């Protein structure tokens, strides 16, 4: 068939967090219209038929909004294309006969659960430390009762597009979470609802980030370049500014 495509996969297999992992090679018959995750489904069907253990990988919405998929493909988080997640990557981005290497996010703060699936609860703990606003319960407030300039709303939304996938950490040579934390802090610092906890939030989130074992920022820009939502590096500058301001105020 004209549309047939044969590729060789080098996949990281690791039984659990403590086990020693290694690359395994698989031949997969796929076609250019398949998504990268569908190609993995095909591989897993094949492995199950052969009575072997299928490859564990994270996925959920398969439309680029949930932030679950997490594969480092040929050395790049979410693969060779910019601005998309692994689930939005298609086999047409590769050539017939290619050898493709697939690894999990690698960072001490993202321990491997199994194969390509990693534990990202360190991100949850950073959010729990301060990445929220406190509101009174009761009836929903009228949408226009707090006026927010369009420009500010747009900037906040740009930061809010972060899906928390962790590609920034996986791309960073220091496994730093600054782009993720920067996006959350920027979003809430811009909006009136975020003002009450503004200084306490940034200090708490940065403390948690450091405690989780993420590295410091070297400003290489790798995170922003690999971010599927194209969060700009300026959110890190905002985070630095917010943190400094809070610290100078004795927080």
């Amino acid at each position, binding site marked *: 068939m004209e549309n047939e495509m044969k590729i060789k996969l080098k996949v*990281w297999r690791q039984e659990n967090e403590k086990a020693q992992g290694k690359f395994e090679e698989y031949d997969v018959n796929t076609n250019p219209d398949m998504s990268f995750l569908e190609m993995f489904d095909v591989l897993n069907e094949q492995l199950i038929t052969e009575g072997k253990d299928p490859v564990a990988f994270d996925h959920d919405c398969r439309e680029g909004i949930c932030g679950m998929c997490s594969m*480092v493909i040929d050395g790049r988080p979410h693969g060779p294309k910019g601005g998309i997640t692994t689930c939005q990557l298609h086999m047409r981005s590769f050539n017939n006969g290619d050898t493709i290497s697939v*690894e999990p996010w690698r960072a001490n703060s993202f321990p491997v659960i199994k194969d390509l699936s990693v534990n990202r609860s360190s991100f949850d703990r950073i959010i729990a430390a301060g990445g929220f606003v406190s509101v009174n319960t009761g009836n929903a407030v009228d949408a226009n009762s707090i006026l927010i300039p369009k420009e500010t709303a747009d900037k906040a939304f740009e930061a809010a597009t972060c899906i928390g996938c962790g590609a920034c950490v996986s791309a960073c040579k220091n496994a730093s979470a600054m782009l993720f934390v920067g996006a959350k802090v920027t979003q809430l610092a811009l909006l009136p609802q975020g003002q009450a906890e503004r200084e306490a939030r940034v200090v708490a989130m*940065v*403390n948690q980030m*450091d405690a989780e074992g*993420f*590295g410091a920022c070297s400003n*290489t820009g790798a995170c922003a370049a690999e971010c599927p939502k194209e969060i700009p590096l300026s959110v890190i500058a905002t985070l630095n500014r917010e943190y400094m301001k809070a610290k100078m105020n*004795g927080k």
Partner: protein
Amino acid sequence: MKVLSFLFNSSIGRKFAMALTGIFLITFLLVHCGVNATIFFNDGGETFNEAAEFMGTNWLIRTMEIGLFIGLLWHIFQGLWLWQNNGMRRKQKYGKSAGNANSTWYSRSMGLLGTLLLLFLVLHLKHFWIVSRFTDEITSGQETLYGEMMEVFGADGLISVVVYVLGCISLSYHLLHGFQSAFQSLGINHPAYNPIIKSLGFGFSIIVPLIFAAMPLAMHLGLLQ
């Protein structure tokens, strides 16, 4: 002082300290380069020796020298600490990584470039700073600082010249990332200023090391009297 403790115990504070000391060292480079460039007047080092005499005896400059060493040591030790500490954040390395697809090699090699600079600096201080501060060679009038330079870089100084040029290349790449990175660490990132910071940083990182490298080269090649 508690209010400033974040400079020593948080990741952002440490980078803030790197940025502040880095910008301080950049201003020092500008002065150092400006003073030394007087050798290109080609007046047998007369202007240069006068400038060196002023820098060596003026109380304000001598006081600032202490600040310079504090800033330099802070930058060195904090930099080495960050290099070592950041390097431990990914125990299991990638089998295949495509770093060049998302960042420049020199932005990922600041620790290495800084270490090369440090090695160069040890030699550099031995050549000139120790001679002028801790021996009486220059104060007693036996030798001028210009004469000292001629001796180090002269006909027999090929190895020194090569080391100095390599030092300048390391400096150039260190600055190419460091200059603009310092502003980002201080939280300065705005579409209105970014082009100025970028072009100023690029110009500085190329021109200043080039002028520095021209000094030993010109002396070795006998272009200066």
